[in-house]
């Protein structure tokens, strides 16, 4: 079931998710259909758009909320609150862990129990895990988002 929230002026670019996230709507410029849970950053080529984060990214701004939105179309991303992030394959998530961008583009690393407290890893932080998941392929895990 999908809900299209409107105002008299059109479709707003801000809304809440049922999972507890604050969402904004930007254009998907990842080059592919959107994948739920992937980490994104601001596009440098197009206004009001996002691209995938690189490996060990320090400029993550959010997490894709909608799957299957075509490249070039507007897509909701989570920028605060609770988000489901796509873990780096074969890595687990443990609730309470510090979560950062991983060495795989667009994926999260939730394997660290404590923050490193040093640059540049400190700036790779995207939040704190609130859900434990076993490692696998394309596993989503919930975090509370927090950026430095």
């Amino acid at each position: 079931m999908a809900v299209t929230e409107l105002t008299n002026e059109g479709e707003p670019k801000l809304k809440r998710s049922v999972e507890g996230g604050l969402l904004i709507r930007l254009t998907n410029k990842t080059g592919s259909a959107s994948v739920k849970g992937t980490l994104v950053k601001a596009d440098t080529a197009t206004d009001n758009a996002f691209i995938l984060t690189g490996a060990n990214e320090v400029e993550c701004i959010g997490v894709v909320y909608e799957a299957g939105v075509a490249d070039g179309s507007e897509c909701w991303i989570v920028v605060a609150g609770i988000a489901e992030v796509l873990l780096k394959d074969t890595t687990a998530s443990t609730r309470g862990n510090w979560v950062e961008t991983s060495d795989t583009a667009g994926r999260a690393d939730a394997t660290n129990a404590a923050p490193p407290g040093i640059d540049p890893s400190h700036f790779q932080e995207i939040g704190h895990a609130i859900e434990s998941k076993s490692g696998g392929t394309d596993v989503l895990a919930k975090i509370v988002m927090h950026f430095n």
Partner: protein
Amino acid sequence: MYASGNSDNGIRINNVRFFDLDTGTLESNTGYGLYIDENATGNRLALSFANLAGTITIQDNAGGGIVAKNHSIIALTNVDGSNTGDYGLELQTGSNATITSDTGITGNTADATINAGATLLTWATHFASDGDIARNEDNGCRIERKD
């Protein structure tokens, strides 16, 4: 029911409480095929309800297919037809509609709108699945697909 070629709307409802149409054609009217409104001079007991649940064609109407105003409630089950006006279904000020997968009424600009055309709604995109909803938090209008 057959209403065609009127110099205003095919059917206008604003002084009855419930209107049920099982089969018919509302076409080639200069206004809307169906115009539903509350009784502006009466009390809220005059809210209008319309149930179009049979095989109904609303087409070639210059104002649009259906307009529902001022807290009207409408259910469309198998209503089809292309209209020369802007919208197949237009809701205004607190009106609600339920549709189904069989609802196919269209307009020249879009299938439906609930914010005066600021957002163009299509049955195939915004109501692709049972339970899909579009709602306007400013004016209280709402369309829900309920198969």
